[in-house]
């Protein structure tokens, strides 16, 4: 394990039920993610990859094992500590976008900053910058139902970046998107990767996984394979994924 690892998990477990009904969603996983690295986690539905992501981001508590994030022991954190972690250190991108339908794009993006106690003006300034960064400056005042799937996911990515997180966790970010929208999001992740953003992407789309620095395969809650892909992200992620027109 590298001391420089941003994420370090040892024997991480998540179990549901008891006795014969015991389900090990995540089964003694060891994981290191270096700063600036993009890691893809693949596996069939129900293999535990989303649960792993939830544990890494403090959305759920582990049943056992150790988890360190940016030098902090996450598995022993209080609820308040976890909230601080989610607010300052981690950004989430969900498959279902999870945008608030009653808020415009820019209002959705500024939400984490407002929750962090930043001033309304500072939060709005940062949100506008991020929407420009994801190419949606002209859609800032649109409500989510008026945006395409790709645009919604780009808004969600912008929101994930609002607090300048050390780690972005993406759970099937293109799972609800068509090919064109997938390309939009991939390009966005490519930009993030180039900018040195640490990313952990859960997917069962091999084309997306191929763009990562490292690919981890999961089955029945455990890691069954790990492949280093050799920094392909330096090139065009979209080209590698075969989505470029």
């Amino acid at each position, binding site marked *: 394990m590298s001391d420089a690892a941003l994420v370090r998990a040892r024997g991480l477990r998540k179990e549901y039920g008891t006795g014969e009904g015991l389900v090990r969603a995540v089964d003694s996983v060891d994981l290191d993610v270096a700063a600036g690295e993009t890691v893809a986690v693949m596996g069939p539905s129900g293999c535990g990859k*989303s*649960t792993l992501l*939830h544990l890494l*981001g403090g*959305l*759920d*508590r582990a049943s056992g094992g150790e988890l360190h994030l940016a030098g902090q022991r996450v598995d022993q954190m209080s*609820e*308040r500590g976890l*909230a*601080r972690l*989610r*607010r*300052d250190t981690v950004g*989430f991108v*969900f*498959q*279902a976008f*999870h945008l*608030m*339908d*009653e*808020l415009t794009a820019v*209002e959705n993006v*500024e*939400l*984490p900053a*407002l*929750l*962090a*106690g930043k001033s*309304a003006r500072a*939060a*709005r300034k940062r949100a506008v910058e991020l929407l420009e960064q994801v190419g949606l400056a002209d859609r800032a005042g649109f*409500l989510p*139902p008026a945006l395409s799937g790709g645009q919604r996911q780009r808004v969600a990515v912008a*929101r994930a970046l609002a*607090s300048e997180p050390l780690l972005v966790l993406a759970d099937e970010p293109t799972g609800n998107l068509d090919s064109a929208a997938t390309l939009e999001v991939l390009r966005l992740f490519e930009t993030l990767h180039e900018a040195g953003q640490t990313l952990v992407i859960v997917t069962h789309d091999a084309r997306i996984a191929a763009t990562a620095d490292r690919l981890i395969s999961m089955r029945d809650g455990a890691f069954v394979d790990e492949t280093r892909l050799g920094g392909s992200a330096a090139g065009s992620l979209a080209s590698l994924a075969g989505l470029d027109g």
Partner: protein
Amino acid sequence: MTGRLRLIGRLAARDLRRRRTEAFLLLLAFTAATATLALGLTLNGASNDQSYRQTRTATAGPDVVLSLNPDGSAMATRQGLAQLAALEHASGVTGHSGPFPATWVPLGGNGHTAGAQVEGRESAPASLDQPKVTQGSWLRGNGTAVLERTFAQALGVTAGGTVTLNGRSFTVAGIAVSAAVPPYPRVCDDGCEDTTSMQAGAQTGQVWVTEADARSLATRSEPLYYFLNLKLADPGQADAGSSDITWNTWQSISWLDSKVILSEQNVMMIFSSLLGILAIASVAVLVGGRMADQARRVGLLKAVGGTPELVAAVLLAEYVVIAGVAAVTGLLIGWAAAPLITRPGAGLLGTGASPGLTAGTIVVVMAVALLIALIGTFIPAVRAARVSTIRALAGSARPPKRRARLTALSARLPVVMLLALRIAGRRPRRAALNLASIAITAGGIIAMLAIASTGRVSFLAPGGSGLANPIAEQNGQVMLVVTVMLGILAAINVVFITWASVHDVRVSSALARALGATPEQATAGLVAAQALPALGGAVLGVPLGIGLSAAIQHGTTVTYPPVAGILAVLAGTVTAVTALTTPAAYASNHRPIAQALHDQAT
């Protein structure tokens, strides 16, 4: 048709079994409204007639009481008494007692001061209107007095005690009731205000002393007046014949005795309307909150060929069943509780009448219960009937309202208030129902406080007696009961609204936590989203309560509750709503975030 009805019945029965707590709370809300309405309607036909007749028989009550109020001059008194003497033998008069001299004097007893209408009587029993002694004995000579029972109770005086009349000490020989004089505090309703101030008249009770004592107690400012009791073959044939003589029939005295019940009936009718509105709010909140849950069922019904009418009927059936059960329960409660309210008080003999349920009362209560169910379910049912099958099958809830200004304003506020305003802004109709529900309850409490303060103003003011007002006390007890019912209904509404809100915002709250809000902030935001409209409702309840108190007093007076009481209502409302809301909000915001987000994704 039979198949459809069976399907509707089956779905309603299963839903009732599946959601027993909700069904029970809703039943409680409906029952509170129907019971109060039933009680109010039952009282409509109630009176103290039975007790009054019993008292009249026991005291040889007169058909007519004539009171002569001369201007104090010897000439007028002589002429008036001559007129009374002529009436004793008028056609149709079959018996008489009196004329008895009377005057108004200040009374002191047991540390209280009050006014007393002192009527002079002989120690020997009168043939008409011989007060029935219920404790002690009748007059034993000069220096003794007999007090009307309600008056004695308010004073806390018993037989063997002493009172002062115009500063002179009298031994209380006994306590008695009479059908010729309305009991305290209604003694002066038949006219003794003519010789006393209104203020004093409102606190006057009846005292019997010997004729000699009565004459000696009269003063220039409070001269003697006279009562003549007549027994008539036909009261309609007699004529007072002089403007100096006031004519009071036994019916009018009986009506004064019934004023307690009439007053209570007024309270019950006003409060049952409020309870009905709260019950509508309960149904509307519950049905609206459950629409998200029922969306899939609506979609399935539509997908298999259910018409919009069938969908609406399915939604309505459950609440109609609850309304029916509540109407029957409410009618039984109203019928059982009516005798408790129609108790005659200490001024009459016997127990209260047991007014029966009339067909009209049954029909009105059933119709109102059904109407509450219909009004509360109408909008959600129409909305469900209109929603597209695909959207219903997806189980997607109605999209929340966007409030641009509220969103912009909340961005400038601390995190808890930001969350609270945005949660409240998502469902403005629900927030409005919350506000209205609390306003009605707070209004009831404020009205009660205002009326209680009226009692204190009238009876404890400088120069007042400091005595309890039995009518106000009985009204106060009734108001307390219905206000408690209002409070229960409001609490049920708060619980329903919280459940609906928790369900509605579970994903957005989880998302807020995923984005960095602490569970405490999310919980406080959800609680504040309920407490803010509640505070608004409590503030609105103040003028509403003052208006209600005026309505209960037939618009004769506008009274204001004490400031401390108003502040206590405001603080108490917010505290109660916070206490009711916190457990559900806490539980919701301490669920794993991933689980809450997963709920929507699936």
